[in-house]
Each structure stands twice: as structure tokens, then as C-alpha cells.
């Protein structure tokens, strides 16, 4: 094991007028620390394509994760997929990216646009070996991972974007490469990179995609630990223990909550300086030497949870938190963009003032927030540890 980690993110848009997407991405983590990602594009669009691509990606990822060979996977798919009544074929193209212990990536590509690899921000034409399995031409590559490598897998809806609208032959591979090269090293997450690519495709299609388009991005990065303190401990005597554990940890430190930050300020013996800059409807942040970010508690964290949920579903608020200067945006950037390993230190003290039924905050909400936030962050592929005091 090294200290690299893979940030995986993907996004799809549907063929105009369709409710289901004919592309499907499946990510399966194995016990030995490997990950199998399959992007499948079913023939046509709508329900039929959706069934084909879902079956294909599920079968491949499950079989590969169980240690079976790619030959067996392809044969199984050929024998299992339902045959399309209109076209008389059972067909779904696929791209497999298998990340082995964050050291090596194995690429297996069948008929999807060739995976783009950006190394140090530049396009890299990596070696590929051609094999034929069951009459299908399959390209395989084995790549040793480096920090900042970006893998971009697409369905053909991406290079086909703009056919007959802006371009004669669609959005060319070279143009997609130069579009992505410009953004690969700016610190965008895999999820945001795939969103940017697919949103651009949607724009090229004039907002009415002529095909399902999917982008799946894998970003190789170094692990970044982060620590978040939220709420005072239920037993006052645990304050010092909680603080010394929190401040002993490597990585940036975030403190949420007024009382909590006062306790930290006392422990650090430094003045807590709240600011009066109201940006948006989130309470202002504060400054404390030795802490990277100090914010208000429940209201701010509640907004972070909203951003996290949106990030995992439609991802339409990413511009709000990507540029915002309020506490919630700052926390979101640190947690979603920067961190890979997050330690939560949650105090279970009950603030008597918050138990007023007129206020929309109470103890249960606070505990739920921590639960929802850590669940969402886990879905983003981050390692989460929660300690209660």
C-alpha cells in the first residue's frame, strides 16, 4: 500500500425525452483494496438500453470482483444479454478500469471511446494490447499509477455531442482532451470533472442530447487527512481529553459551534475573534490561531449536509459552494474537494438554549446531521471515523 488514493466520480445525461439512462456505471470495491469500475453503454436508448447496460456492468463487476477472468465475463455477457427484437443483436459496449491497491490500473476497453489519461496535466497515449475474445476486439492496458493521473472514460454520447449542430462530426477527442487538460490540475474532484465534461456535452447538444452521455473520472491523489470538531463533550471533564486528541491529529482542523470554539480557544489560550462579515444567510465565521476554520454549528453544518446531498445527486449547487466565502462553503470545499480521510470529534452535550420548541434546532437534529454528513462523505469515497464524547 502507498499513500495514494483514487477519487472516483461520474455523471450521465439522458437522451432527450428519455427518463432512463442507457449508460450505466458500476463501482465495486473488493476486500483486498482493489476497485472495479465498469462503464457500460447499452444499444439504443431508454428502457432497453438501460437494462442492457445495467446487466453488463453488474455482471462484469461482480464476476471480476470474484476473481474470474475477463474472457469468462465476456462469454457470460454474450450468452446472457437479451436479444433486441428490432435489431436482432444483444449488445452493450463497456470500459473496465480496475484499480489494484492504488498502485496499478488495468484497463479493458470494448468499443467505447478510448479512455483518456492525463498525466501531469498532459494527454498521454498509453500502450494498448489488442486481443479478440468471442469475436470481440478488446484493448487491454496495464498502467502504473502516479500522483495526479486523471482517467476519463466516456460513452460515445460525449464525442458525438454537437453532431449536426456545432460540428460536422461531433466533439472531437482532441478537443475533449484540451478541454479537460485545462481543468485537470485545478483541484476539481472527479465528480466535478465528470459534471463539467457532461454539462459541456449537453451544451454542445443544445440542451437536447441526441444520445445518452456519461463521463466517469478517476483521479489519483495523495491522501489528505482532515479533522472536524462539532459540539462540546457531554461531560465537562472530557473537554481537555477531547481537545488533546483532536489537536494531536495530522491535517487541517475545523471547529463548528460557538461554545465548542470557546472551549478550544481556552485550551489553546488564544483569543477567539468572530467576524461580522455576513455572506449569504449563514452565520459569520471566526478566527482562532492554530485552527484552520471556525464556524457556527448547526445552521452551518445543516447547509453542508444539503450541499453534500446535492453533490451526490444532481450536483447543481457546486458553483455555490465552490466559490462561496461563507462558513458552509468553506467547510464543503475542505471536506468534499480536499480531504480523503476525515475524523469527526462529536460532543454530545445538550445546549439548553436549543431545546426551545420555537427554534428549528435540537439535539436529535444535531446527531442526525453528523450521521447524514458522514454517510454522504462515505458515498463520496472518503474514509470516515466518528468519535463521540
Amino acid at each position, binding site marked *: 500500500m502507498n499513500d495514494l488514493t483514487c477519487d472516483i466520480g461520474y455523471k450521465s445525461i439522458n437522451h432527450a425525452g428519455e427518463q432512463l439512462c442507457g449508460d450505466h456505471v458500476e463501482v465495486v470495491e473488493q476486500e483486498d483494496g482493489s476497485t472495479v469500475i465498469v462503464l457500460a453503454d447499452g444499444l439504443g436508448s431508454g428502457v432497453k438500453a438501460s437494462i442492457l447496460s445495467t446487466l453488463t456492468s453488474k455482471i462484469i463487476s461482480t464476476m471480476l470482483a470474484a476473481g474470474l477472468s475477463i474472457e469468462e465475463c465476456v462469454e457470460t455477457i454474450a450468452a446472457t444479454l437479451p436479444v433486441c427484437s428490432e435489431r436482432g443483436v444483444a449488445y452493450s459496449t463497456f470500459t473496465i478500469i480496475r484499480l489494484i491497491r492504488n498502485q496499478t490500473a488495468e484497463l479493458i476497453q470494448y468499443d467505447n471511446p478510448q479512455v483518456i489519461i492525463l498525466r501531469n496535466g498532459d494527454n498521454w497515449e498509453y500502450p494498448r494490447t489488442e486481443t479478440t475474445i468471442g469475436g470481440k476486439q478488446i484493448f487491454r492496458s496495464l498502467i502504473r499509477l502516479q500522483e495526479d493521473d486523471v482517467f476519463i472514460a466516456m460513452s460515445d454520447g460525449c464525442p458525438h455531442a454537437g453532431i449536426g449542430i456545432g460540428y460536422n462530426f461531433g466533439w472531437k477527442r482532441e478537443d475533449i482532451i484540451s478541454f479537460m487538460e485545462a481543468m485537470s490540475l485545478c483541484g476539481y474532484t472527479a465528480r466535478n470533472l465528470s459534471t463539467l465534461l457532461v454539462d459541456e456535452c449537453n451544451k454542445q447538444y443544445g440542451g437536447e442530447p441526441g444520445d445518452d452521455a456519461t463521463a466517469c473520472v478517476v483521479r489519483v491523489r495523495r491522501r489528505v487527512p482532515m479533522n472536524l470538531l462539532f459540539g462540546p463533550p457531554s461531560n465537562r471533564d472530557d473537554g481537555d481529553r477531547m481537545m488533546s486528541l483532536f489537536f494531536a491529529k495530522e491535517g487541517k482542523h475545523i471547529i463548528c*459551534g*460557538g*461554545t465548542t*470554539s*470557546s472551549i478550544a480557544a481556552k485550551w489553546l489560550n488564544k483569543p*477567539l475573534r*468572530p*467576524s*461580522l462579515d*455576513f455572506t449569504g*444567510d449563514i*452565520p*459569520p465565521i*471566526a478566527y482562532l490561531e492554530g485552527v484552520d476554520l471556525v464556524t*457556527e*454549528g*448547526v*445552521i452551518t453544518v445543516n447547509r453542508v449536509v444539503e450541499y453534500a446531498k446535492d453533490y451526490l445527486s444532481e450536483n447543481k449547487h457546486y458553483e455555490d459552494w465552490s466559490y462561496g466565502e461563507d462558513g458552509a462553503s468553506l467547510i464543503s470545499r475542505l471536506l468534499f474537494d480536499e480531504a480523503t480521510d476525515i475524523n469527526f470529534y462529536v460532543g454530545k452535550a445538550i*445546549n*439548553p*438554549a*436549543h431545546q*426551545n420548541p420555537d*427554534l*428549528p*434546532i435540537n439535539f436529535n437534529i444535531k446527531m442526525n446531521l453528523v450521521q447524514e454528513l458522514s454517510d454522504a462523505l462515505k458515498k463520496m469515497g472518503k474514509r470516515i471515523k466518528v468519535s463521540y464524547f
Partner: protein
Amino acid sequence: MKVLVCIGSSCHIKGSRAVVERLQELIAKENLQDQIELGGSFCMGKCQQGVCVTVDGEFFSVSPETVTSFFEKEMKARV
């Protein structure tokens, strides 16, 4: 004179933002920037009486509705 306004969760919900903005406005209007230092503070432990404001350490309960008379009586008059 040092005036602190609580910007904690509870006071935020009760309108501390409006109080701060109104006070900033009044201080600017009366040209008292040199005499009055306005600052934020986290929870003062009296959330039930929010919005919590202290004037040189003396505690007051203010709301967005009462902020103007509070300024006249407790701040401007004392400068």
C-alpha cells in the same frame, strides 16, 4: 465603547444579522466609528434572551424591532 453582538446559532435565528446591519448603519450615520467598536461574539450562554448584546460588558437583550431605540438609549447617549 465596545459593543459585542452574539452571532451564535440561536441569536442568528432570532435575527442577529439584522441587528448587526442596523447598528453598522446607525454608527455610520451618526459618524461614531471612532468611538464605538462593534464586534461579533459566539454564544454568551443566555440564548433564551437573544439577541444577546453587551455594551462594555453590560448585558442587553435586543431584537431587530428594538435595535434603533437600544442604539439611542444605550449606545449614543453613553458615548
